[in-house]
């Protein structure tokens, strides 16, 4: 009896899960919606425009964070060192890396000043589960800056696992730094370094 119940529960979950997966927002639409929404919210918010960093980070946490897969990002940034970390260490690296990336993202957004976006049509096949969404930031007198989001399909929607700005992959750019630190002082050393960096930046904010 319990077995049948479990089976029913499982099929129901699968059916509903499946139905939801059918209606996932396409990755390019998602990027466009989130970008425009965030830019509009910032434009309307006097406090954020005036430099309220905590409020901006709160906005990013609400609107942007759910669409990123920070475990993937941390794993890619650590490369081979990821396997040397215990599950608990992986969690802490992910947490610290997330804090650092959100802060970096906040800095980038804070310097945004009415540039125009050009959302490129998605070049992907119907069944693809790993795509790149291209956006370009247009500015007068200079080459447009491409921003490419690498995204993977998951049960809870499309998630960003890397951002490339002007051809520079964010996670790849951390790889050498992370590997150097792991080689010098182990995964613990990396975590210590990341959290020291985050605390220093937090301190600078309060000044």
């Amino acid at each position, binding site marked *: 009896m319990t077995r049948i119940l479990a089976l029913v529960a499982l099929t129901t979950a699968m059916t509903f899960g499946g139905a939801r997966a059918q209606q996932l927002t396409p990755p390019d639409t998602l990027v466009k919606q989130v970008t425009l929404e965030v830019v509009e919210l910032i434009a309307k918010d006097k406090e954020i425009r005036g430099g309220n960093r905590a409020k901006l980070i709160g906005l990013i946490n609400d609107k942007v964070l759910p669409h990123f897969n920070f475990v993937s990002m941390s794993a*890619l940034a650590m490369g081979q060192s*990821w396997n040397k970390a215990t599950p608990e260490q992986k969690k802490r690296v992910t947490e610290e890396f997330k804090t650092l990336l959100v802060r970096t993202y906040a*800095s980038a957004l804070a310097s945004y000043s009415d540039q125009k976006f050009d959302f490129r049509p998605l070049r992907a096949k119907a069944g693809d589960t790993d795509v790149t969404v291209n956006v370009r930031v247009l500015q007068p007198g200079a080459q447009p800056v491409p921003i490419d989001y690498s995204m993977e399909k998951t049960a809870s929607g499309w998630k960003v696992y890397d951002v490339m700005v002007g*051809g520079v992959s964010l996670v790849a750019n951390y790889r050498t*730094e992370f590997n150097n630190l792991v080689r010098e002082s182990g995964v613990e050393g990396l975590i210590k370094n990341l959290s020291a960096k985050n605390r220093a930046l937090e301190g600078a904010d309060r000044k």
Partner: protein
Amino acid sequence: MKLLCVAFATLLTGCATTNGDPRDPLEGLNRKVYVFNDKLDSWVLRPVATGYRNWVPGELRDRVRNFFGNIADPLIGVNNMLQGKFEDGFLDWIRFGFNSTFGLFGLHDIASDMGYEKHNEDFGQTFGRWGAGTGPYLVLPLLGSSNVRDGLGSALDIYLDPLGEVRPYHLEYGLWATRLVQTRSDLLDASRILEEASLDKYVFQRDAYLQRRRNLIYDGRPPRERDVDTIPPGEPK
């Protein structure tokens, strides 16, 4: 110019300190030059560029950026031609033609508004396109991140720069200085983000430079690098 040659000679004969990265065999020396550049930047260039951004209206800064962008377009066109991209090269010259006339001596980038986008080319990229390897990573005094190939490219870029033709000399130097301050002011946000994001600024900037140059040589469409052995098995990608 002389400074560049001296820098090269020093770097090529200089002590080869190895910190393990095969792309950067001169890391020890590079880091010293990096510290020198960084000090010079934070004492002189960054404060001047910050003042420029705070005190000069954005509208005027746009004109200055457009002006220098415009006089660079002919040589960008030459580089596109040298790389076999004749259509792009031709468009660069069209840009120069439109912007120099209807755009009032390049003060307005009307070509971009018409859909003729600006390109990013230089001799380092041309050499790369022709198949030249990068050679070791170099940090050049004043010029910053480079490598043997791009350093030689930059020497040629500077040699052929239209500002070199400007006379009298004080006007020429004034224009070089203005362009430098304009360029630096455009990078103020990026350099602050770099500062915040990196654990080791030298490494972060070096890796970003190498990625960026590779991307530029392939005009934004580089072949995928072999990433397979860096992605741990069994992990979400």
